[in-house]
Each structure stands twice: as structure tokens, then as C-alpha cells.
């Protein structure tokens, strides 16, 4: 039985000139398909409407109110606490500093570090999108403001909501206590590291002597940083171990090895700075980074210790486990020490990483880039604005510098591929550590021989050589060899 259709007559009945195509009508009487191809243009990128302007104003207003609250706490908190102690009849030495201290803690931790870190979670996603020619997250909306994405910021709220409502899975065979404790141990050092960083010089507002920064006057500022930074490894290694997961443990082991290795470099790179500034106090270092070298260069650490900057940046990246040193996470291979974590505990690990980014960007700013100091014109501004307004401007300067180095950290993370484990160890022990030791020795010799001025000249010479090297003017060019891949060159040498 055949089901074949035959159509001899149909074709014969077509008028002359119309071929077999007429049978299915693909070339006669065919209308252009009418689909909804031209949709109404998107209002997604339309100019702002009143509602949206209101939303943006609300966002800025939040920041302003935050600052106002801080200022109010600074001033009235003082009075309130001092009054409280007076009422209680107790006498408290330097009681007037307590309000300042509490307000500083709240401001620095909540408004500065946490806010920046929170924005960085979205910043990473959005900035990486721009680096990769994408748009990035833009779907979440604020209630009542459906027409604007606010650069993805509502996603932060969505993420927080997700993290808080997600089921928290706890591995039954893991160490329960440490499992719950580990995120806090990892998170706390990152936050309290910021304590010794001064965000502004001391200034006077309405008769009160104030400064921004929790404990910038600490004598052992740098040592405090080394001490607290090394605690962070506990959180990761305990978290990985307590998960009772082989991948978690693997990540934890990598984290421990890497962080301990790079702590040495991290410390040694800063020894040069100690030698130059002759102090461990960060506020003291800060106050020394004012003025100008040779009349025009800002008197910043970068011009004394350019080698240390490179080493420090690499070591700091490794210390906070950011790409290209993110082997402990290694999301594409072992997921890492937090593999068993979910919900808010994972969220704490994640936000902790961004807090670390902010903290190290702040340290970088403080140590090498003049902290809150403007590069030029501070003297003129102090004359015209007065020290109080200048202090406000300097806080913004510090913020700008910190944000820039956060961005740099993220740009590095989205530019370079992850190191292999042996490469990390080679880089740390064989290159960065010898280089930082050499830097210490060199700095010591130069300071002995030429003092601060000699150190500045050395730094600038180093910087010029480094830049020239980067640009490619100096350096040994070996003909043709660069263009060969390793295997190709090996083959060429074997068969050549």
C-alpha cells in the first residue's frame, strides 16, 4: 500500500510560466508575513520621569541623612554620654571622647565599610559586565519605581532577601560549633582592620575636637594590621574543615597555605615604609604624607616605595583571596572552603570578601597614596575654607581614592586568569619575597646614606625604571622568541 501522492494534473493546469512552486504558493499570491516585529520602543532607557527623579533624590537623601545622623551623634552623643555619666555621679576621664568613639564605630563600620562593600557586590557584577560588553543586572526594581533600574542597586535588596530566606543547610557530620562560628571569625577581622585607618585629620566642629576613624592614634597601627589580618585565615580554614567536605577542606588548605605565604611578603613590603616614616602609627604616616617632593610631586608613599607597591598589591590580592589568587574558592574547580555554606552564612563569607577589598583599598590609600590628603592645593584650601571644611573635603578625597582602588582590584579580578597553585607559590616565595627583602635592604641603605631626600630620589628612579619597563623602552629584547609558544619553541629546538 502506497501513500505517495501524485500531482501530475495540478501542475499541468497551471498557466504557462508558473512553475511547480505555484503548487505550494511560495512565489504567487504571497503576502509579506506580518509579525509584531516592530515593537513599541523600550521605555527602559527612556529619560528620567518625575517619579524616577524622586527615587534618585531618595537615594541621595539616604546618604545625606546618614551623614547628618553621624554628625549629630558626634556632637550630641558626646553631650548625652557625658551627661549620663554626670547624672550617675561617676567621673570618667576623657568622657567627652566616648560619643565620638561610638559614632565613629557606627559610621565607619556601617556607613563607610559596609555600605561600600554592599555596593561593591553589585559593582562587581555591573563593572564586570561593562568590562565584558554586557549590561549586567538590571531587572530588579524598587517598588513604585518600575521604570528605572537604578544601575542594578535594587538587586542588592533582592540578594539580601534571597540570602536571608534561603534554606540553611548544615552538614550533619561536620563540626557544628565551628561550622557556625567560622563565618563570624572570617568576617570580624575584616571589619575591625579598618579601626586604625584615619579617614580625616583631627578637626574642630562647633567647639568639639573630632576626627573620623575609630582608633587612628594607635601606636602599633601597622602591627595591629598584621596581627588582625592573620586571624582571617582561621575563618576560612575552620569553615572548610568544619564542613566535612573534601572540596571544602581542599579550599581551606589552599587558603591557609596561600595566606600564610603571602603574609610574610605583606609584612616585609611595609617595612620599607616604616623605615621611611619612622613610625608604626598610621595617623603619623598620614600627616607625613603632606607637602610636595621637589615642589610638585605629592609627598606620597608611592614615590618612596614603588617596588613595594607592586609587591604589596599582589600580596594583598592573595591575602584577600581575590582573583587571580582565588584558588581557595576556585569556583570552576573546587568551589572552595564555603562549599557547604548556604543562606546568610554564605552571605557573610561573600560580604566579608568585599569588606576585605574595601579595607585593603583603604590601607593602600593610607600607606601609599597620601590617605585623605589632596594631591595639590591643600594649603590654599586651608586658607580659604578653614580646617573644618577642608577636613570634610579630605574625607571625600579618601573615599574617592578608596573607591578607585576597589575598582582597580575588581578590574584586576576580571582581567587576569587564575594562577595555578605552583605558580602562586613560586611567585610568592621566589619573586615577591626576595624582592621585598631586597627592597628593605635597599631602603635601609639609602636612608642611612641620604635620609628622606635620598629615599625619595631612589623611589623616583625606581618608578621611572618600572614605568619604562612597562612601556617597553628598556628591557632585553630577544629576537623572535617572544612570538613562539612554549611547545613551538621546543619543537623548533628539537627538530631544528
Amino acid at each position, binding site marked *: 500500500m502506497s501513500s*505517495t501522492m501524485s500531482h501530475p*494534473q495540478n501542475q*499541468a493546469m497551471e498557466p504557462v510560466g508558473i512553475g511547480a512552486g505555484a503548487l505550494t504558493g511560495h512565489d504567487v499570491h504571497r503576502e509579506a508575513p506580518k509579525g509584531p516585529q516592530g515593537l513599541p520602543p523600550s521605555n527602559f532607557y527612556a529619560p528620567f520621569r518625575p517619579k524616577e527623579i524622586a527615587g534618585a533624590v531618595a537615594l541621595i537623601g539616604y546618604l545625606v541623612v546618614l551623614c547628618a545622623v553621624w554628625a549629630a551623634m558626634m556632637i550630641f552623643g558626646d553631650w548625652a554620654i557625658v551627661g549620663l555619666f554626670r547624672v550617675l555621679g561617676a567621673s570618667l576621664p576623657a568622657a567627652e571622647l566616648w560619643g565620638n568613639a561610638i559614632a565613629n564605630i557606627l559610621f565607619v563600620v556601617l556607613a563607610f565599610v559596609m555600605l561600600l562593600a554592599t555596593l561593591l557586590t553589585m559593582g562587581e557584577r555591573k563593572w564586570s559586565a561593562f568590562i565584558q560588553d554586557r549590561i549586567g543586572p538590571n531587572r530588579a526594581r524598587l517598588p513604585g519605581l518600575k521604570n528605572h533600574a537604578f544601575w542594578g542597586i535594587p538587586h542588592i535588596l533582592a540578594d539580601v532577601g534571597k540570602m536571608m530566606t534561603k534554606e540553611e543547610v548544615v552538614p550533619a557530620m561536620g563540626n557544628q560549633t565551628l561550622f557556625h562560628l567560622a563565618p563570624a571569625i572570617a568576617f570580624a577581622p575584616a571589619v575591625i582592620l579598618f579601626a586604625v585607618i584615619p579617614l580625616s585629620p583631627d578637626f574642630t566642629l562647633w567647639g568639639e575636637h573630632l576626627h573620623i576613624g575609630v582608633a587612628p592614634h594607635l601606636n602599633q597601627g601597622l602591627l595591629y594590621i598584621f596581627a588582625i589580618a592573620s586571624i582571617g585565615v582561621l575563618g576560612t580554614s575552620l569553615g572548610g574543615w568544619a564542613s566535612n567536605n573534601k572540596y571544602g577542606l581542599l579550599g581551606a588548605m589552599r587558603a591557609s597555605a596561600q595566606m600564610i605565604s603571602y603574609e610574610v611578603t605583606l609584612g616585609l613590603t611595609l617595612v620599607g615604609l616604616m623605615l621611611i616614616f619612622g613610625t608604626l602609627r598610621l595617623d603619623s604616616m598620614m600627616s607625613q604624607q603632606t607637602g610636595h617632593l621637589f615642589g610638585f610631586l605629592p609627598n606620597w608613599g608611592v614615590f618612596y616605595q614603588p617596588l613595594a607597591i607592586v609587591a604589596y598589591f599582589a600580596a594583598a590580592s592573595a591575602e584577600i583571596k581575590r582573583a587571580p589568587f582565588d584558588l581557595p574558592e576556585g569556583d570552576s574547580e573546587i568551589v572552595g572552603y564555603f562549599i557547604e555554606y548556604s543562606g546568610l552564612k554564605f552571605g557573610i563569607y561573600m560580604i566579608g570578601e568585599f569588606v576585605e577589598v574595601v579595607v585593603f583599598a583603604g590601607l593602600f590609600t593610607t600607606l601609599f597614596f597620601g590617605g585623605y590628603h589632596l594631591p595639590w592645593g591643600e594649603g590654599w584650601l586651608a586658607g580659604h575654607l578653614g580646617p573644618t571644611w577642608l577636613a570634610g573635603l579630605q574625607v571625600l578625597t579618601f573615599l574617592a581614592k578608596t573607591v578607585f582602588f576597589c575598582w582597580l582590584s575588581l578590574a584586576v579580578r576580571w582581567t587576569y586568569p587564575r594562577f595555578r597553585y605552583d605558580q602562586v607559590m613560586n611567585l610568592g616565595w621566589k619573586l615577591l619575597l626576595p624582592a621585598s627583602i631586597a627592597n628593605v635592604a635597599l631602603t635601609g641603605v639609602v636612608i642611612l646614606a641620604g635620609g628622606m631626600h635620598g629615599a625619595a630620589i631612589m623611589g623616583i628612579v625606581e618608578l621611572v625604571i618600572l614605568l619604562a619597563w612597562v612601556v617597553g623602552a628598556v628591557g632585553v629584547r630577544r629576537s623572535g622568541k617572544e612570538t613562539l609558544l612554549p611547545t613551538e619553541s621546543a619543537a623548533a629546538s628539537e627538530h631544528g
Partner: protein
Amino acid sequence: MAEPNTATASPAPPPSTAAAPAGPSTSATTIAPAPEGFVNVVVDGKHAVVPQGVNLIEAARQVNVAIPYFCYHPKLSIAGQCRMCLVETSDARGRLVAGCQIRVKEGLQIFTKTDLVKDAQRASEEFHLVNHPVDCAICDQSGECKLQDYYVGYDAKPSRIATYKVNKPKRKIFGPLVVYDGERCILCTRCVRFMNEIAKEPQIAMVGRGDHSEIDTVPGGQLDSKYSGNTVDICPVGALLNRDFRFTSRVWYLENERTVCDACANGCNVGADVRADEVYRYLPKRNEEVNDVWLCDDGRVSYHRAMDGRVETARIGRGDAARFLSDEAAVQSTAEALKPLVGSSELAVLISKTLTTEEMLAAAVFARDVLGQKRIYSTGRPPGSGDDFLIRTDKNPNAPGLDLVAKALGLELIDADDPKNHAQHLVMFGAEMTGDLSARGQAMAQALKTLVVLGVQHTPITEAATHLLPLSTHLEQEGTFLNYYGRLQRFRQAIPQRFDSMPAWAWVTRLSKALGGQWLFESAAEAFGVLAAKSAPLGGKSLEALPDTGVVLEGLAPAEYPARAPRPAGTK
């Protein structure tokens, strides 16, 4: 490809040298003389020994060479209308002869693949398509249409005809079962010859001349013969179509399952065209000793019994008290109703003559051994009209089967579907009855306290039932029918059991189990085995070993066969 007689055949002579028997390729061997009544022929180089007197088409068929034809039919007279079967023979190379008309003779060589023949075939096909509408898309024949197949096989070229086509009657109702489309007709006259020669009722004829020729009924009459459906079967194109089947399904969706028609006692072999659990039509199957290749119209539409008005679910209680139950619950309820009646003289068992032999056996042993009855009553469809060809007056397909079963089990069979008046409880295997069904149903509903009915279709009888169990038709089960002259014909399951229905032996097994009886049948073959062990005519046959065309049991043949009815070979 099977090539019979190749052991004695010579190597194939090429057609060009065939006219010279002494050529080098054929000189090595000689063709052995054919046995008495047979002749040697060579078809496209293949040697065949064929009976004397067959035509070239049949001779070529012996060696699997297909000569195309429209009008030729082995059971009809030769018309030579279509000119599709033109071939060359060694008698006259370069001339074409009609393969249907020319008979074989000793040593004849037939050529069906030469350029001349191919040209002729292509031309014939093209001529047939000159006025054909090629509306295959709406034509029910497409898929089983010779014109369609041959177009692909022998023409396969666009038509060169650019003139208007002749308009002819379309959708002309010829009779109750047949509709005619004149434009599709290629005027092969198979239908006319069938009505003249086989049905002996010349109700249609070719009228008109030239390209206005068409088939039409005689003036004032219509094609209402009892065999009109066969004209649809033999129509090679879509000109005559079955009104019952029309537009219900495309033929390529259907599977042809061999079974037996249950519309009368003749037991015609049919193929049921089925798709999923539905039968769409019956087509006759060839069985020279039962129905030849024909089928009557009543049988052709009898599949509707399996499709329409079925008892779908078991029901307990009649009228307003009716409840629909699952199989298990219905069996339990029925068994409870039957339990106090075991051995009672107030109980009677009716077995329908429409059941399969296996169902009858199961019902009979249930009556005898579980219900403790000495006699059974037979019921069935009322007799109808018959003729001397394929239609029997007895409309029950298996009346001799019930006799056989009763005899084998030693039960008294009373050929009446009205048990004695004192029977207040009745078990009916099969809901068929004679007489005025609605009146009888009302009477039974009043008179009977218990009426267990295993029924296929809803009737007044099933309405009166207190316990109604859905019964499968013969299409839904394996089994045998014993036709009017004692031919035991086996059929296989054609479709799945529809709704909740089961064969009677399956119901018996369940009821028997519920009543503590010993008769548990797993299959029809098991029931047949029980019968074969007890019945002398069956003589230890097994269901699996029965051939598709059936076997004739001794001692059941009628004294005289109807005049034209097909009968076992060698029977007068």
C-alpha cells in the same frame, strides 16, 4: 525474491537474443518438458511452469513479475478496457498484446520491461489521468489507489495535457453504501462486471460515449444489492467509495487484522481495518471455500456492533436502583446473587449462539459444574433473509458450536430462548434474543427476580438485567467460530478489549472463583483445550495449530449446499 522452479530454469536469455533459440547463451541447457496440464513460459528471462490456460498476468505473477492492470480481476471476465497490461511476447516482437487476454502456450516468452512496453504503460497511465481530477487530498482511496501507485511506478512525469478537464457527476449517491465520483472513474467496468457476473444483479452500467462515458445506475433504480460494497473494494481508483467508511480515517493509519465476520452463519473471512481500539471497516479476505473474495453489505457494516452502543461498565440493579461498579465488585455482587441458586430448578442458563466456541464452553461448564444445571437454553439473533451465495438465514455465527459444546459436556440443549415459566432466575451469556425485544425486556423485568446478563450492546434485555456485565465481542478476543457447514475458523484478537469488557470465559473464571468453583480459564486456548479433550469431532486439536483459513469438522455438513455458495474443495 523467491523464484520458483529456478532449479530447472535456464540462465536468463537476454530479450534481444530470445528470438533465436540456438543462441550461444541458451544452447548449454534445455528446458525440461512441463507436466501434464502445465506449460513452460519465460517471463523477462525467468522460467516458469504455469497451468495451461492462464493469462500472461497470472503467469508473470508466478515469478514475481508484476504486470500493471486496472480492469483485470481474476474472478471476473476479461474486458481489456484499461490497456495498462500491454506486453510483448516472443510470438510477435514489436507488437503489444494485452496481458489479461492472451493465454500462455508452451515456450512463450513474455517481455514486460522493454522500451516499447514501458512507453505503452506510460502512455496508458497518462491517458487515464487526462480527465482525472487528481484530488488525492480529499479522496478516500489515496493510499490504496492503483492509479496513484502506478503513476509513481510507470509514469512519474508531469502531465502534458493543458486543456480543460471534462466535468462529470461528483458525489452521486448510487445506493445505501456506495457513492460515485465520475471524474475519478477510469471506466474499467470492474463494478459493472461484478454486478453482472457475481452478484447477478445488473444494477449499474456504463452510459455515454467517448470521454462523456460514465457509470450510472439503471434508470429509476439504485445500487442496493446486498453485495454492492464489493464494487468499492474492486474499484481500482476512488470513483466508488464506501459511504460508511468515507472520511473517517486515512487508510495508511489502519492495520488490517484478519478475523471472521459474525453477521451470519457463513463465517466470511474478513480483515478488520483498525486503529488503536477502533475498527473502521471490514474488508473481505480471500478464502475460496467460505467467501471467495467477497463480502455482503450486512457483514461489511456489522463491525458497528463492536463500536456503538456498548455496555461499558458493570451495572447492578435495574432502573432507578442501578449502580455502576468495578469488575471485582460486580463479580462479588453477582456471585452473592447466584450462590443461593446453585442447583436450583428455578434457575436457567441461556447461552447465545453468537459467542465464540471457547466462551460457550466456559459458559456451559459454569452452568453445569458451578450452577449445577442439567440443561442449557440457546439464544441468539432472530433469523433473517438469506440467499444462495454468501448470506445465510441463520444470523448467528456459531450455532453448530453450541451443539458441539452441549454434546461434549453431556448437557441437554434446548433450542429456545424462553425458559419454562417456573424459572424466576436467569443467567444469560449474550443478550441476543428473538421476538419483540422491548416487550420481552419488560416482561423479563417483571417476571425475573435475578437476571444476570453478559451483554455486548445495550438492548431492552440488558435494561432488564439485575446484574449486567460488559462482554467483549469476538474482535476483542481470540477464539473460533464453527460455521454452518462445520468449518472451524480461528481468529485472533484484532483490537484491545474495549471499556471494562471481558470475554465470557474471563467472567466465568472470576464468577467461578467467587463461587468456589474449579473452572479457571487463563486464555481462550485453555478453554479450547478443555473442549478438544471432550469433543470427538475436534479430536484433540489445539487452537494454536488451527490454520487461518480454518478446518472442516466431519459430520456437520448440510445435506445440500446453497447453489452458489463457496464450499470445501471436492464437495458437490
